[in-house]
């Protein structure tokens, strides 16, 4: 009789900790990461022959509340069809009882892994505009994210920007009801059920989100009164992060935009993510931004910056022309 080595035992332990994908169309490839609500695996869809990301709830969940929340996230993602939101392909329950959903596998890097030297201010602002577009779309569908932060934004290898992790999102309106129907779970053994009302709403006083990125009202646990302006605060904090991680000092109009978005009084923030994105667009186009009042000197400086190439060319002409005049009059 031979004893198993420590290495073999640890391998067996690791394998037994993995969810059981037997009987499903998915073949486990790798463990990608974990979040507050589950573990994300890279898997291969054996029927379609493509790689997918599987978010699996593999924590003990006696009350079933976490499972309901994970399925609710899948429902929310399914109703948000947008280029900035990762599409859901499938959802269900594995044979070992773990709830999961399958989504597009996004290759890229998280926004909090930016390259200080390589990612210019222009690149960062373009990414931020795309985040604002996505969040504005979700708000239009009556959904607030509630956990916007650089770690929840993926920048794909082809420049696509995806807002991830809608696990603590809040549904403000009851638009498209059809998505709350039971969803077939592919080859999984059972189908999933609609999230219960209890699971779809966070209890008043409960604090969900990330410190430093959540709005003051969210941090106080005022869940019932949260609205889209809470996400505006978080967007401001994301912008602040993008500016403070620059190699150089951020321009004052952009700092003013971040400050306006992060006002403690939500009435003083931007009215919508669209307005916030528009102010960023104005800055990029060399136009005045609403958050940054300009005196005459600032206006001149902005105008000179916007038309600097033309100004340099005209000045070059004038200098050379003056030299020619002096030469002719010799």
């Amino acid at each position, binding site marked *: 009789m031979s004893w198993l080595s420590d290495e073999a035992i640890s391998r067996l332990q690791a394998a037994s900790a993995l969810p059981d994908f037997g009987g499903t169309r998915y073949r486990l490839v790798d463990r990608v990461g974990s979040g507050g609500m589950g573990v994300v695996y890279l898997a291969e869809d054996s029927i379609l022959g493509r790689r997918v990301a599987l978010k699996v709830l593999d924590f003990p969940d006696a009350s079933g509340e976490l499972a309901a929340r994970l399925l609710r996230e899948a429902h929310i993602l399914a109703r948000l069809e947008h280029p900035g939101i990762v599409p859901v392909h499938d959802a269900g329950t594995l044979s070992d009882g773990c709830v999961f959903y399958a989504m597009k596998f996004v290759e890229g890097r998280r926004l909090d892994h930016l390259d200080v030297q390589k990612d210019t201010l222009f690149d960062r602002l373009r990414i931020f505009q795309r985040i604002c577009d996505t969040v504005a779309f979700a708000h239009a569908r009556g959904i607030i994210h509630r956990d916007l932060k650089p770690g929840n934004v993926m920048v794909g290898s082809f420049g696509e920007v995806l807002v991830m992790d809608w696990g603590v999102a809040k549904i403000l309106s009851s638009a498209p009801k059809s998505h709350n129907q039971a969803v077939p779970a592919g080859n999984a053994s059972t189908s999933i059920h609609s999230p219960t009302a209890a699971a779809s709403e966070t209890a008043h006083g409960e604090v969900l989100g990330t410190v430093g990125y959540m709005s003051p009202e969210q941090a106080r646990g005022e869940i019932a009164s949260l609205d889209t302006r809470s996400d505006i605060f978080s967007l401001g904090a994301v912008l602040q992060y993008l500016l403070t991680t620059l190699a150089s000092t951020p321009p004052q109009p952009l700092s003013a935009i971040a400050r306006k978005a992060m006002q403690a009084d939500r009435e003083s923030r931007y009215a919508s993510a669209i307005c916030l994105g528009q102010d960023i667009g104005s800055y990029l186009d060399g136009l005045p931004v609403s958050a940054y009042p300009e005196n005459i000197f600032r206006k001149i400086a902005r105008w000179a910056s916007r038309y600097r190439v*033309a100004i340099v060319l*005209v000045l070059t*002409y004038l200098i050379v022309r003056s030299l020619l005049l002096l030469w002719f009059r010799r």
Partner: protein
Amino acid sequence: MNKVVYGLILGGILGIFDGLTSWFTPEVRPQLLMIVVGSTIKGIIAGVLIGFFARKVHSLTLGVLFGLGVGLLLAFFIAHMQGKYYFEVMLPGGLVGLIVGYATQKYGNSGLSTPSRS
């Protein structure tokens, strides 16, 4: 802004300055207004031609040479109408063409639908 419009605006602005510099030549000062109008039109024509060239040909060297050639040629016509001041008119004219040629190659959009930062 597309290259043709970019060339037109820049050529026009430089044309105005080009005309205004004739103030420094006392003998032509009385015709200053006519000179400014003429050199502005010359600058606009040069700018449009150079802008069209830049849309078709993407080469800084060829763009600058084409700009220089157009500027010199148009200035030659102006000087020829007066029958004198060839050097004084053609040299700044060539300079305008050269700058517009450089600018339209470096900046502005080739197409009409692509947005631009410049």
